[in-house]
């Protein structure tokens, strides 16, 4: 009898120990899952690979920017006795920043996107977003430079930008690498393919060009409500 009780008791303890072990593993899994980097653990392998490629490319750009800024700072530090060098440097920076921000016009290589037929503002904004993602340095829609605050609005046939009706057909011009811009826009499953599903009657063509003029914005880019932080 004692032996029977002993065997039964051992099985009971084993069962409880097993359940307790599984409980422990699950509880730890839950806690670790919650303390992970927010969202990253939810990405698929494909998304993670895409994210890493994006981060790598961006970090390379940032390193280049840092090298430029270090050079600029060094020049400023050593050129106090040489006013002309400082002026040249400042003028060059000013021209670059103004061109980038949209305050001045820009001429360069890029693509021209011709659009004809009914298309919604959501699709045009998708195109602009994709162009920015592909590294476009300056974009215009129907002659209007795209800067922060410029939004293409309206339903198909009633598009407007900066209070001006957008014609049909109309063009979007973007300065950047023609190959990258063309490849990004026209890749299988890319933005133009997706727009084609939503707006099947819209015709979109992309032409790489060696010289495009993009005008400056007509907006005042200086904020009136915001002030530089101290």
């Amino acid at each position, binding site marked *: 009898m004692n032996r029977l009780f002993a065997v039964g008791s051992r099985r009971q303890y084993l069962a*409880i120990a097993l*359940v307790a072990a599984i*409980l422990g593993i*699950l509880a730890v899994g*839950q806690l670790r899952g919650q303390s992970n980097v927010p*969202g*990253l*653990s*939810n*990405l*698929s*392998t494909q998304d*993670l690979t895409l*994210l*890493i490629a*994006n*981060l*790598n490319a961006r*970090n390379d*750009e*940032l390193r280049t*920017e*840092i090298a430029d800024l270090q050079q600029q*700072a060094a020049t*400023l*530090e050593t050129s*106090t006795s040489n006013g002309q060098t400082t002026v040249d440097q400042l003028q060059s920076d*000013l*021209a*670059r*920043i103004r*061109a980038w*921000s949209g305050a001045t*016009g*820009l*001429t*360069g290589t890029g693509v021209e996107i011709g659009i004809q037929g009914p298309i919604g503002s959501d699709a045009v904004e998708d195109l602009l*977003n994709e162009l920015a993602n592909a590294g476009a*340095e*300056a974009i215009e829609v129907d002659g209007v430079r795209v*800067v*922060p*605050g*410029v*939004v293409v*609005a309206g339903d198909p046939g009633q598009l407007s930008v900066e209070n001006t009706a957008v014609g049909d057909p109309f063009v979007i011009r973007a*300065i*950047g*690498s023609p190959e990258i811009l063309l490849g990004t826009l026209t890749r299988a499953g890319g933005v133009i393919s997706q727009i084609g599903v939503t707006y099947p009657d819209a015709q979109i063509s992309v032409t790489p060009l060696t010289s495009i003029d993009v005008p*400056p914005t*007509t*907006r*005042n*880019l*200086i*904020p009136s*409500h*915001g*002030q530089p*932080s101290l």
Partner: protein
Amino acid sequence: MTGLVARARAIPSWQITLSIALLVLGFLIAAQLAAEGPRVQYTTQERSPLVETAVQLQAQQDALKAQILDLRNRIQSLEAQGPGAAASLKQLYADLGQAKIAAGLTALTGPGAVFRLEDSSTLGAADEGLVTANDVRVLVEQLWLAGAEAIAVNGERVTVSTAILDIGGSVLVNSAYLAPPYTIAVIGPPDIYERLQQSASFRAFFLDRVQRVGLGLSVAELDSVDVPAFAGTVSVRFGTPDASATPIASSPPASSATP
């Protein structure tokens, strides 16, 4: 009744313990499965290094951006020391300061609002209840149309080169990985939220994505909102600035575009 009590008393205590443990086990398994529903969990060994790499790269990016901001501040202070003699040089420094403000390279403070956009708390089997890049973009676009002067999403300044993209169930802004919830800080007219609510497109977005799907959207109207400077690259490699270009001054009403 007495029989039932007697039978209950006859159940060995280890069986009761085991039953309770199994109940907890079932609850934990159900919780795990529910958590894996909308944002699928992958726990294979091959993903672990990828996650670590992404975390390291994101940390590097944060450090690089901080370095850029430090360098820009250093350059700004060097420039401030510079103008002493020539008035033309003084003007050049002033123009450069204004150009940096116009480009979003300077942090701003001003009246506005802070929006918080988050996933639906009642996520179903589909991903419809997750905040997408399109949701963030629609809100940003509507804020521009309502008169916003400066916008940042989770600390990423929206500039002329900003793209807002989906990556899995999260969002990339300026190639920085942002996890929900998304905080959108905006500087603009003090009544910017009122202006936003008057937009038909914003109302359509609110009805569909917030009321129907259940995305969380909250707003705080503030007298002082901080929007950080853009910490990315300002490069013009494929274009040449117009030589004769001069800065422009005319300003259309910020809220005049037709939503």
